[in-house]
């Protein structure tokens, strides 16, 4: 391990290592956060005027730093389009039989699924049970399409998964019961469209599926709608020997010999109309040119943070208490803190010698589902703004303003073997009590890079009771330690930018299997998981007032170790266990509080 001494690099490093932050650092951090959380920015909702003002502010700061736009870009602000919401634009369903014609057009009877394309199709109907198909890799055979020919047909399927199977099987099926996944399976088998009904034996029985907030840019080549129980019953009038409820009951024990069937005697015409509200959001991206980017196989290093937040919290992610609803969600910690730290880190990195180009990326659309970072990596037209195979690594800062007791959580270190060394080197001069976590699958922008096989790291100072509430305000930020986080982020980036060889990427196997989606989650418990501590079990950073967990007496700091008879060792176990509980049925919750084991009963309520 003999290293040649690079005197110039050492001088540059001295700038970064100055034990105290640059003079005025805490002052400028405070001024950044204060502006980003001011009333006129109204919570920086992606696509809003407040977001635009924040983007202009950041672009101005980048200009003052002396950063330059990315190659091929003329400005720091890079727009991306997204769907800010979906509405049904008048979807209709018409039935034509020999002796009768019917038509349904109210949204109480038929409504588009939010991911559907706009199109009109006509065809005969095949009832395909739950419309579930498990991939072969699952080592568990279940295929609703066995023996069915749905080519050119409209498939009618039940929402969710068989209600009466054993817990383990339900937990397997639950992960493949998302509606988008079901629609894809129907399409792959040649079906023209998918109609979904919540069966009489399921939660939300007979109800139309709400149009969820779906941020996909365009339709998916799928035509899909949900119909009410009443409409489904009328379709089943053409089935000689059973009602919808009987058909569902025969499927609910999971008997593999129960198959779907064609419903004869009529054709349906489904005309789906989805209105998508298109908006434009802005990532703000600047570059500090490297001294020798061409001398490296991967000439870019990224340091990033999202600057958007929830606006007034109308999009579903708000945890505002009753009296706070509709108020500005200031997002001081989430993530004005990371935005300010990124500007400060950029200021430290300016003028320092780094071989690779350092890209400072301020993302928007994070709160709506990593929209900005994903657009940057994938689109438009699948042309990434920066080829991921030229990117040596990505360091993210999300919620870094509430440091307590010198503790910094550094997440995703499993994504490359170089991280422990870089963290060690960067922390010696800064001196945090660092907790490391391996898992790179995080609810923040670093996950978009991990998916693209780029080594990632995320800095985090922990969740708190003001998370996603209007009370996440600027005066609660710990600016002194925020300046140290900025210094640490700059040091890691500096070292990454000067490594001779780009770091290896380690593909961490997700603890959670793919296939599921949020719409398979039916139960609501009102627990707020703590993502910063690796304990055996699920530690709660809080509970939602009035929710089932609060009713059951759970509170902040409790560690759930058992749920509905399942052992809970991490958040994934908990999510699985949650997928298969029955709404309204009490379950036993085992938890640890101050080292003592307790058991309570909780009754989950339904999500939409």
């Amino acid at each position: 391990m003999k290293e040649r001494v690079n005197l110039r690099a050492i001088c540059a490093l001295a700038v970064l290592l100055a034990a105290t932050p640059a003079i005025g650092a805490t002052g400028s951090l405070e001024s950044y956060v204060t502006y980003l959380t001011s009333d006129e920015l109204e919570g920086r909702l992606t696509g809003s005027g407040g977001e635009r003002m924040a983007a202009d502010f950041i672009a101005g700061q980048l200009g003052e730093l002396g950063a330059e736009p990315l190659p091929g870009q003329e400005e720091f602000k890079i727009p991306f389009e997204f769907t800010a919401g979906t509405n049904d634009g008048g979807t209709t369903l018409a039935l034509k039989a020999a002796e009768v014609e019917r038509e349904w057009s109210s949204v109480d009877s038929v409504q588009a699924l939010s991911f559907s394309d706009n199109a009109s199709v006509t065809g005969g109907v095949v009832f395909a049970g739950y419309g579930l198909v498990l991939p072969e890799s699952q080592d568990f055979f279940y295929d609703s399409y066995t023996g069915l020919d749905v080519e050119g047909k409209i498939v009618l399927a039940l929402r969710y998964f068989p209600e009466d199977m054993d817990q383990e099987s339900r937990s397997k099926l639950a992960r493949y019961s998302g509606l988008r996944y079901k629609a894809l399976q129907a399409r792959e088998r040649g079906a023209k469209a998918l109609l979904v009904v919540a069966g009489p034996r399921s939660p939300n029985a007979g109800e139309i599926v709400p149009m969820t907030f779906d941020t996909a840019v365009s339709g998916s080549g799928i035509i899909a709608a949900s119909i009410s129980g009443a409409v489904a019953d009328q379709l089943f009038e053409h089935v000689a020997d059973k009602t919808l409820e009987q058909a569902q009951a025969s499927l609910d024990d999971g008997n593999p010999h129960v198959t779907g069937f064609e419903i004869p005697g009529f054709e349906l015409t489904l005309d789906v109309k989805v209105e998508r509200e298109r908006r434009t959001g802005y990532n703000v991206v600047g570059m500090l040119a490297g001294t020798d980017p061409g001398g490296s196989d991967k000439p870019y290093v990224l340091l990033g943070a999202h600057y958007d937040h929830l606006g007034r919290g109308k999009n579903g992610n708000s945890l505002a208490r009753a009296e706070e609803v509709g108020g500005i969600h200031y997002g001081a910690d989430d993530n004005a803190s990371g935005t300010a730290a990124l500007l400060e880190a950029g200021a430290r990195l300016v003028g320092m010698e780094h071989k690779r180009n350092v890209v400072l990326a301020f993302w928007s659309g994070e709160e709506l589902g990593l929209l900005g970072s994903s657009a940057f990596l994938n689109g438009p037209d699948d042309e990434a703004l920066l080829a991921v195979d030229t990117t040596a690594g990505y360091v993210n800062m999300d919620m870094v303003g509430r440091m307590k007791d010198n503790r910094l959580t550094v997440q995703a270190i499993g994504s490359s073997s170089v991280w422990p060394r870089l963290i060690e080197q960067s922390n010696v001069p800064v001196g945090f009590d660092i907790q490391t976590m391996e898992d790179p699958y995080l609810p923040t922008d670093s996950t978009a890079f991990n998916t693209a096989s780029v080594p990632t790291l995320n800095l985090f100072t922990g969740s708190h009771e003001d998370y996603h509430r209007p009370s996440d305000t600027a005066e609660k930020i710990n600016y002194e330690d925020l300046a140290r986080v900025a210094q640490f982020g700059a040091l890691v980036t500096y070292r990454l930018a000067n490594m001779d060889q780009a770091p290896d990427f380690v593909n961490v196997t997700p603890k959670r299997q793919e296939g599921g989606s949020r719409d398979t989650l039916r139960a609501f418990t009102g627990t707020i998981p703590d993502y910063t501590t690796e304990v055996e079990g699920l530690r709660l950073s809080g509970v939602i007032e009035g929710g089932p967990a609060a009713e059951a007496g759970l509170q902040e700091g409790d560690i759930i170790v058992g749920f509905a008879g399942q052992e809970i060792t991490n958040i994934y176990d908990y999510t699985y266990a949650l997928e298969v509980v029955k709404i309204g049925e009490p379950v036993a919750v085992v938890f640890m509080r101050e080292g003592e084991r307790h058991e309570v009963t909780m009754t989950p309520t339904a999500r939409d």
Partner: protein
Amino acid sequence: MNPVISRPLCGLLFTLLVIGLVPASAAEEPAYEESDFLNRVRRLTFEGRRAGEGYFSPDGNQLVFQSERYEGNPFFQIYLMDMMTGESRLVSPGPGKTTCAFIRPGAGDILFGSTHHDPESEALQRAELEARAAGEEKRYSWDYDPEMEIWVAAGDGSGLTRLTDVRGYDAEGSYSPDGEWIVFSSMRDAYNRELTEEEIKILEVNPAYFAEIYLMRADGTDQRRLTDAPGYDGGPFFSTDGSKIVWRRFDEEGLTADVWTMNVDGTDQYRVTDFGAMSWAPYEHPSGEYIFFASNKLGFSNFEVYIVDAAGLKEPVQVTYTDGFDGLPVPSPDGSKLVWTSTRHQGEGGQLYMGDWNHEAALEALERSPQRERPE
């Protein structure tokens, strides 16, 4: 400077528990908490499975330590960390086992125990790697390798020179403040004379029984023995003024240990602690006012760091309060920092930690601590 503890002392501790020698933890609330003495606690090392035994250079700008981070070698190697940049470089040659490094005042040379010269060392590495791959890691694999000898090298690893050359474990060395002398622990007494039948049996199960404290010049000449007591004498360090040596002495069975001091010629051997537990890894604060050490007084695997006045007249004061192992405390030369080895991150092995040390609070706490009967 006990290499044993760099591996959890499972074997020994288990014995302690079984025969009930560990005192029950005191029922009263502790008078202090960790933040009374240590602030801005930070984790220093992250790379590799384990790290430990950190010792400062006299100017406090460098820290020598041992870490399992050398690719292909499962055992510790010696590294030198620059406390300004955070960068570390390898000092020891790479193969074999190494332990217990120390920086020579004035010269910057680094001494450490090493087995790299042993032709068997690479085979031992392979065997350990295979055992680990098979999940059979020994619970406590510090085996007092009789091939362990004390070597010295420059800070960049060049000029590697052997200082001891007798069969039997030679390690746990440290320099005098003037850099002219080395005090160390050796088990040569088990190999340089005819053993009684009873001693042969002891050698098989508890070779450390034969360990004694020795002194030599920095060039390895003039080796002389300072202690002559059954039981493991090890981990010796000079006091800041160079007049004393502080070390730990185990009882004959290796069950309990205490901190002792003596003159550099071996006279005036004086027992400082008497917890009746395993109290070891002593190191004097540069003020000369008190000695740091680690003890499992509170039970089983819960080692904590304590301080005791040099004369041992006061009840020792506990200064760390975190579950798991906290030990091998070493202050910075200006007395303002403390480096120690801890498993507080709940990882599989210890790593180095550092905190800002509150010397004034330590003095006050000792001042207030009750007098106690002097141990005999």
